[in-house]
């Protein structure tokens, strides 16, 4: 159900780790819960974030949702396309709907995130 090879948080972010960089987005479950996304606020490139900090905001018609940093580090890239086309988050949450790239301060943090199976279990528990 949830892509293997990604790491997940309890707040429904995903991170694709490669080297010391993490591409971050929100999961398919999160985008479905939110509904149609109409607004995204992204951090400035160069922003330093600590794990669990709110680093972006995703808003649907009815809800405002913080996106928390899954890992600590520096924001090195943001997905500007979302400013014009926030619906990319609904259409392709693991692809074109990515939010930011974080250069990790401590790559070991990534090991503390959930894998797909653990995340699946969390979602099932929340759904009950």
């Amino acid at each position, binding site marked *: 159900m949830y892509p293997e090879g990604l790491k997940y948080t309890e707040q429904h972010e995903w991170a694709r780790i490669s080297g010391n960089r993490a591409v971050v987005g929100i999961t398919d479950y999160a985008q479905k819960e939110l*509904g*149609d996304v*109409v*607004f995204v*606020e992204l951090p400035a490139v160069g922003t330093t974030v600590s794990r669990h900090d709110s680093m972006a905001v995703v808003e649907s*018609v009815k809800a405002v949702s913080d996106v928390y940093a899954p890992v600590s580090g520096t924001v090195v890239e943001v997905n500007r396309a979302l400013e014009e086309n926030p619906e990319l988050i609904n259409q392709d949450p693991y692809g074109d709907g990515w939010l930011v790239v974080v250069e990790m301060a401590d790559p070991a943090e990534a090991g503390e995130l959930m894998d797909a199976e653990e995340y699946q279990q969390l979602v099932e528990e929340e759904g009950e």
Partner: protein
Amino acid sequence: MQRTPLHEEHLRLGARMINFAGWEMPVQYSGVLAEHEAVRSAAGLFDLSHMGEIEVRGPGALAFLQRVAVNDAAALSCGQVQYSLLCTPEGGIVDDILVYRRGEEEFLLVVNAANRAKDLAWLASHAGPGVELEDLTFRTALLAVQGPQAERIVRGLTDLDLGALFYYQFAEGEVAGRRVLLSRTGYTGEDGFELYLEAEEAVALWRALWAAGQPYGLKPVGLGARDTLRLEMRYPLYGNDITEETTPLEAGLGWVVKWDKGDFIGRAALERQKREGVRRRLVGLVVVERGVPRHGYTVLSPEGEPIGSVTSGSYSPTRKENIALAYVAEQYAAVGSAVAVEIRGKPVAARVVKTPFVEPRVRRKG
């Protein structure tokens, strides 16, 4: 939690259900944006059975309504509907309601679900002899078909003369073989109908409207899109834009108050406010920079001083801009005024615009 007679239909259609004023209601089916678009371009089918229906009848009914509501119920002929307000002696709004005149001494009030019990108590406390009140809410279902294709969809199901029925008029007869009160009203700004009927007939009517609507692009629409549709029209939402702490004059509903009909509850306070002038007004805002205004956000002057607050705000699917209703200090209420909305601690530029945000396309007479 209370369920409407259409609960199973909603689940079958994949609705996401929420608690709204103690009712389990569909908030969305396919998605708010798609549902909003369906109503603006084709048609939407709504279950509004949570709304309260209160019958007022008897020889004292008209005089009673003249006293408890601010609009002129005597101006209503049978078959007409009127938007009205119940006010407190201080001029605050107890509820906004629709008044249907079904007979000389027979009226139907349609009230907000969240206010039903409060309204009933309020009405009962002011009703004298010759006035009977009856709460019909739980035996009544309310369905709505709204959108440019609404008339075509309903036409195939009824012998009622829809051509003779204009905005804020109603007729009683059969639709899809069910006895209904068919009202050319709505909360979307589009042409369309609201259909009241006995709760046990609701599923049959829903299915008939559904089937008749499919060739015309009809979609089921939840409370999410109902809110964005009404906001684009500047229709106030009770509890957000109007409350007991706000008056009709502040809310831009002065047109509802009829001064030449005699005394009514709230009259003295409203006259005083009219004479002295209001200090704040409910206005429409469009956000100029980036950000979505939300209920409760502070409105700032260009200098950064707090001047009011947002009561409803959303992305407008039709305008593709972020819009809001907000109370602002009188001196900032003129169309064109530059203001800001504080979003997550930062001022985001906005301006006061003329409302409605989107032109209504209801079917008015003449």
